[in-house]
C-alpha cells in the first residue's frame, strides 16, 4: 500500500503554481470597497486547494502559511472583517512567499524563513486585529441557530482527534491556543508524550461559536479524517464536520442560507443537491444516513471511510473515473494505521480537488501532458515531414516513369503531413496571457514604489507562441516594462506640467505578423532623449556622429553599461539590463526595435519566431558541404565584381556594397573546407545583419530556401563554435545551421588580430 508520493510532486507544484497565479490575478482584480463574493470565494478556494494538497504531500510549511492566509480570507468572505487595501497587499505578499517556498521545494533557491514569519505575523495580525468586533449578521448563520437550539448560546463540544505526524508538537500547541481563543477549553485526555503514533486527544470546548469556526483548525492538525467533533447537546447528529451540510444535521439549514459555508464546494448545495452530488461522486453517497456510523467512527483512525462499504458500488464507479485513486478509497477503512500517514489523504483530497475544479471549469477540458512526450511527438512528425520530402524527391527524379496515382498519393501525403505538423506544433503553443498576467502586479508594485500613477493596458493576450519562448520571454519583457515605468513615465507633477494626464499608460500588445510574433511595450512617457544618449555615448567613447538616424541612436541604449538615468534607483539605471534584454531576445532568434518621440512616448517592439523548433533557412553550399543560414539574418546576396574586394593588411578583406565597405567572412577558410572556386568572383557574397553590424559571408552557391526542423547538436555531441544546431535535409543528410552572430564575432576577432 505504499505509494511513492514524489511521483505526484510535479503535479502538485504545477497545480499550486496555477492556484497561486489565479489567486494573484483575482486579488489584483478585486475591488477593495465592494469585493465580489464570488471572487473572494474563488480566492479562498485557491488557497484552500493549496493547503489541502500541501498537507497531503507533507509540505507542512506551505500548509501552515496557507492555513493562516485562509483564516483571514475566511473571515473576510464571511463579512466578519472588511476587506482593506493593506489586506490585499498582505495576500499578495503571502502569495510571493508561497511561491518562494514552492521554488525552494523544487530545488530552486531557498525560502526565506524571516519573510515567511513576517508574512504569517502580518496575516495573523490582520485576522486577529478586529476579533473583538461583532460579526456581521449575514456572517455566521450557524451560531444563531446554535443559540436557538442550545438556548444559552454557549455549548460544549467534544473534540477527538489523532494528530497527523506532521502536526505533532507545535501544530497541536497552535491548535490548543486557537481553541482557547474561542472559549473555555478542557483537555480531557492527552496521549503519552512518547506515543510514536501521536495518540488520541480528547478535548472539551465551551464556546458560543458554531463548530465550523474551528472545524478547519482541527481538520488541519488531525490525521486525515481522524477527528470528530460532537456537539454534546445534539450529540451524534453532526459528528462530522465534513458532513455538516448533510440533510438532517441541524447545520444544513444554516449553510443552505449561508452560501459561503465551510467548504466552498459543498456549502451551496441544498438538501436535494447534496443527495445528487452524493450519487455523482460515490464518496459522499453515504451522507444521508450518517447517524450511527460516526459513533464507531470516532474511535478509529479512518472514520471517514467507515460508511463507505454500504455504498461500495458508486465508489468503484468513481474509482474507474479516476484511474489511480481506485485502489485507495476502500482499503483504508479496513486497514490498520499505515506506516506513513501522508499517504492516505490522496484518496480524499484529490477527488475533492477534482470535484471543485470540475465544477468550476466543466467546459474547459484539458489534460496535462509532459513536454517530453510532446517533443517526442514533434520529433516524430518532423521525421515524417522529412520522409515525405524524400519520397517526393525520389518520385520527382523518376519523372514520367512515376505512375500518376503515386504522385497523387504523394501530394496528398504532403498536405496531410503539413497539417499534422501544424497541429502538433500547436500543442506547444500557449497564449501569451501566461506572461502578460504577471505584469499588472509588476506595474502595481513598482508604480507605488516610484510614486507614479500608471495604468497598464494589455491587448492580444490570446496570441499564441511556443511554450519554451513563453518561459524565456518573461524576463526580458519584465525588464522592458520596468524600464518604461522608471525612465519612460514621468512623475505626476511633471506630466501635468507637460499637459498630459497625471496617469501614465503602459501598453502591452501582442500580435502575429507573418511567421513572427510581435510584442510591443509602449508608454506615453518622456521618450528617449536623443541628445543625451549621444552625449553619453561620446563620454563612453562609442563611435557616434550627429548624422546617425534616430534608430541607430536609440539602439545605443542596448550597449552594455549604457544608462542615461541621472540617478541610480533600485529599479533600474545601472546600465545592465538592456543589453541583457537584447541578448536574451537574440538568443531566441528574435530582435528588438525602439521607436521614440521625445515628450510623446517610447515603443519597444520585440519580434520573435513563433517557435524554436522550426526555422526559415537558406541553404548555402561550401565545398561539398551544405549549411543553413537563418533567413532572418540575410539582407541580400550578390556576386562580387573583380574590383569590389579589397584586402586590408594581412588576411582581412572588405567588399564594397553600394559604396559601403563590409568585412568579408570567408566560410570555407573559417571552417577549413575546400571551396569549389579559386576566386571570389565565382562565388556569392551573402550580406548578413548580425547584431546590427553587417558582414558579407562568402559561400560557393545559394541552393534554396527551406523550412528546417531544428535539431540539437549538443544532445549527443557538444557545442561547436559558429554552429547553432543541425537539421535534416530532404535527402536524409545532416546540414548544420550557422550561428550568424558567432560567425560575425569570430570574423571580427580575426580581423582585429590581423589588423
Amino acid at each position, binding site marked *: 500500500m505504499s505509494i511513492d508520493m514524489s511521483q505526484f510532486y510535479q503535479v502538485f507544484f504545477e497545480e499550486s503554481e496555477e492556484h497561486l497565479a489565479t489567486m494573484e490575478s483575482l486579488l489584483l482584480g478585486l475591488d477593495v470597497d465592494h469585493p465580489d463574493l464570488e471572487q473572494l470565494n474563488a480566492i479562498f478556494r485557491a488557497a484552500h486547494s493549496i493547503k489541502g494538497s500541501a498537507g497531503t504531500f507533507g509540505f507542512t510549511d506551505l500548509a501552515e502559511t496557507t492555513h493562516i492566509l485562509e483564516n483571514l480570507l475566511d473571515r473576510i468572505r464571511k463579512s466578519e472583517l472588511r476587506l482593506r487595501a493593506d489586506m490585499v497587499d498582505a495576500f499578495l505578499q503571502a502569495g510571493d512567499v508561497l511561491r518562494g517556498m514552492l521554488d525552494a521545494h523544487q530545488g530552486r533557491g531557498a525560502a526565506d524563513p524571516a519573510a515567511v514569519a513576517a508574512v504569517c505575523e502580518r496575516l495573523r495580525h490582520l485576522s486577529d486585529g478586529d476579533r473583538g468586533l461583532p460579526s456581521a449578521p449575514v456572517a455566521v448563520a450557524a451560531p444563531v441557530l446554535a443559540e436557538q437550539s442550545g438556548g444559552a448560546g454557549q455549548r460544549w463540544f467534544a473534540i477527538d482527534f489523532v494528530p497527523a505526524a506532521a502536526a505533532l508538537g507545535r501544530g497541536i500547541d497552535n491548535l490548543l491556543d486557537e481553541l482557547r481563543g474561542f472559549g473555555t477549553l478542557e483537555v480531557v485526555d492527552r496521549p503519552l508524550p512518547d506515543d510514536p503514533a501521536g495518540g488520541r486527544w480528547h478535548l472539551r470546548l465551551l464556546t458560543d461559536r458554531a463548530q465550523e469556526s474551528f472545524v478547519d483548525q482541527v481538520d488541519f492538525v488531525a490525521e486525515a479524517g481522524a477527528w470528530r467533533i460532537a456537539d454534546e447537546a445534539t450529540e451524534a447528529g453532526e459528528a462530522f464536520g465534513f458532513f455538516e451540510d448533510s440533510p438532517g444535521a441541524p447545520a444544513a439549514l444554516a449553510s443552505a442560507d449561508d452560501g459561503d459555508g465551510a467548504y466552498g464546494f459543498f456549502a451551496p448545495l441544498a438538501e436535494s443537491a447534496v443527495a445528487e452530488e452524493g450519487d455523482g461522486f460515490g464518496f459522499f453517497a453515504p451522507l444521508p444516513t450518517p447517524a450511527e456510523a460516526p459513533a464507531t467512527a470516532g474511535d478509529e483512525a479512518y472514520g471517514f471511510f467507515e460508511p463507505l462499504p454500504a455504498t461500495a458500488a458508486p465508489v468503484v464507479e468513481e474509482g474507474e473515473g479516476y484511474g489511480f485513486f481506485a485502489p485507495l478509497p476502500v482499503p483504508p477503512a479496513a486497514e490498520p494505521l499505515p506506516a506513513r500517514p501522508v499517504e492516505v489523504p490522496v484518496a480524499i483530497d484529490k477527488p475533492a480537488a477534482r470535484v471543485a475544479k470540475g465544477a468550476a471549469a466543466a467546459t474547459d477540458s484539458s489534460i496535462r501532458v509532459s513536454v517530453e512526450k510532446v517533443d517526442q511527438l514533434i*520529433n*516524430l512528425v*518532423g*521525421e515524417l515531414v*522529412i520522409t515525405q520530402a524524400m519520397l517526393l524527391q525520389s518520385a520527382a527524379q523518376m519523372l514520367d516513369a512515376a505512375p500518376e496515382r503515386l504522385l497523387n498519393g504523394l501530394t496528398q501525403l504532403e498536405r496531410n503531413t503539413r497539417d499534422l505538423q501544424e497541429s502538433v506544433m500547436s500543442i506547444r503553443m500557449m497564449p501569451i496571457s501566461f506572461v502578460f498576467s504577471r505584469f499588472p502586479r509588476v506595474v502595481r508594485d513598482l508604480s507605488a514604489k516610484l510614486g507614479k500613477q500608471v495604468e497598464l493596458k494589455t491587448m492580444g493576450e490570446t496570441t499564441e507562441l511556443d511554450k519554451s519562448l513563453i518561459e524565456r520571454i518573461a524576463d526580458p519583457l519584465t525588464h522592458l516594462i520596468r524600464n518604461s515605468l522608471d525612465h519612460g513615465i514621468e512623475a505626476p507633477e511633471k506630466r501635468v506640467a507637460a499637459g498630459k494626464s497625471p496617469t501614465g499608460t503602459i501598453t502591452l500588445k501582442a500580435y502575429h505578423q507573418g511567421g513572427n510574433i510581435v510584442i510591443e511595450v509602449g508608454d506615453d512617457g518622456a521618450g528617449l532623449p536623443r541628445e543625451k544618449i549621444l552625449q553619453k555615448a561620446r563620454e563612453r567613447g562609442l563611435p557616434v556622429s550627429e548624422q546617425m538616424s534616430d534608430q541607430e541612436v536609440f539602439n545605443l541604449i542596448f550597449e552594455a553599461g549604457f544608462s542615461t538615468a541621472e540617478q541610480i534607483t533600485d529599479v533600474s539605471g545601472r546600465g545592465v539590463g538592456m543589453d541583457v534584454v537584447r541578448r536574451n531576445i537574440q538568443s531566441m532568434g528574435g530582435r528588438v526595435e525602439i521607436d521614440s518621440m521625445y515628450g510623446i512616448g517610447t515603443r519597444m517592439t520585440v519580434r520573435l519566431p513563433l517557435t524554436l523548433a522550426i526555422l526559415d533557412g537558406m541553404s548555402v553550399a561550401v565545398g561539398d*558541404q551544405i549549411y543553413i543560414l537563418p533567413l532572418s539574418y540575410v539582407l541580400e546576396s550578390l556576386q562580387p565584381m573583380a574590383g569590389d574586394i579589397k584586402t586590408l593588411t594581412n588576411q582581412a578583406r572588405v567588399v564594397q556594397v553600394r559604396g559601403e565597405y563590409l568585412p568579408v567572412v570567408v566560410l570555407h577558410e*573559417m*571552417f*577549413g*573546407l575546400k571551396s569549389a572556386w579559386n576566386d571570389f568572383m565565382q562565388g556569392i557574397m551573402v550580406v548578413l545583419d548580425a547584431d546590427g553590424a553587417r558582414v558579407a559571408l562568402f559561400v560557393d552557391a545559394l541552393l534554396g530556401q527551406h523550412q528546417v526542423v531544428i*535539431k*540539437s*547538436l*549538443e*544532445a*549527443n*555531441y*557538444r*557545442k*561547436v*563554435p*559558429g*554552429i547553432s544546431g*543541425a537539421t*535534416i535535409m530532404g535527402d*536524409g*543528410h*545532416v*546540414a*548544420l545551421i550557422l550561428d550568424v552572430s558567432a560567425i560575425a564575432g569570430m570574423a571580427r576577432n580575426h580581423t582585429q588580430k590581423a589588423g
Partner: protein
Amino acid sequence: MEPMTQAGATAEDDLLASEYLTFTLGSEEYAIDILKVQEIRGYEVPTLIANAPPFIKGVINLRGIIVPIVDLRIKFNLGKVEYTPFTVVIILNIAGRVIGAVVDSVSDVLSLTAAQIRPAPDFSGTFDTKYILGLASVEQRMLIVTDIERLMTSADMALIDAAAD
C-alpha cells in the same frame, strides 16, 4: 556459516556471465559490454563538423537524432583507415547520449564471466590502460575488455562539453 555464504556469493559472481560484443581495430580485438550497444550499421558519409579533431568524422542522421561519429581507428592509429561498404559503425548508448564508433569489423557476441577477465598488465600503449577493464582469452584469441563508457566520456574524445573543457 557466514564465510561460506560469502564464498558462495563470490563463486556465483564469477559464474555470472555478461555478454560482450567483440570487434577488431587493426589486428587487435576488443570487447565491450553489449548493453551499451544500441545497434550496428553500415558506414555512411557524415556531415563534417568544422574544426573538430580528425577522429570525429562528423554527424549523421539516425532516424531524426543527430549522432556524432568517431573513428576509433584514427583515434588509436590502428588498422587501415578506409571506408568500404563493409565498414561498420557501432551505435553506442552511453551516459544518455548516442554516439557512433567506426571499427574495422564486428566479430561476435561472447559470454564472459568475471573469472575469465584477467587484470591487464600495466603497459603503456596507444590505448590508455585506464579504459581497459582487463584481458580475456577465448580460444587462442586475446580480447581487450574495454570500459567504453569511460573512454567515450573522457576528455580525450572531446565528445562532451564539460569533459572538453
